[in-house]
């Protein structure tokens, strides 16, 4: 199976910042994938599997995140994580 690279955009709901609890949920979901996953926002980039890096993005509600992944399950990873971001409440 060849590794793939995937990229998608996901916007945080207007009222939900990527602060401690949602960031924890995001990182735990990311950790379930073998792919290397990165999130970019506000001109910064973070390893999706590092809670401290994700918190360091300082992403407020309404921020558009770029989620990119590479590896065998990259497509599933970006799809699931984008869906998680859009569905945070």
């Amino acid at each position, binding site marked *: 199976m060849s590794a793939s690279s995937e990229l998608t955009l996901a916007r945080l709901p207007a009222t939900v910042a990527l602060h*401690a609890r949602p960031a924890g949920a995001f990182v735990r979901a990311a*950790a*379930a994938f073998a792919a290397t996953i990165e999130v970019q926002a506000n001109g910064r980039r973070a390893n999706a599997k*590092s*809670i*401290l890096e994700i918190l*360091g993005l300082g992403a407020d509600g309404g921020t558009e995140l770029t989620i990119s992944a590479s590896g065998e399950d990259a497509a599933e990873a970006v799809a699931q994580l984008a869906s998680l971001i859009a569905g945070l409440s």
Partner: protein
Amino acid sequence: MAFGIVECRAVAASNGNGLVGLVIVSHSAAIAGGLAELVAQVAGPDVPIVTAGGGPDGTLGTDGGRVLEALRTVDEAGAVVLADLGSSLLSVKAALAELSPGEAGRIVLADAPLVEGAIAAGVTASTGASMAEVAAAAEEARRVSKL
């Protein structure tokens, strides 16, 4: 109540679910207990956490006996210890020396800032990561910028 958090939310740094646990050691029972609550909120309720906060008489300080007791609750899944400052770390080192090689071998003392290290370790432990990976996540807190 200096040891309250241990009785009310976790009795051991292991709970048989196979996840690596955390042991939080602080001069303050309130810091240790509050941090355990925060980690549970970010990492979810499954990561076993035990705290040893405050001195023997409920004041600020460290209690070597309580630290040893906390370390002895760690099972085969292992645990990563996070300690705040100075004598907390000395108490952990002294307690580790009291344990059998088998007991001590499943405990790692992380060289990490307490709050950030515990959050990183807790989230990583919640994913089923190994003791070495949990400790590495805690120590990564030394290099990750907050702003």
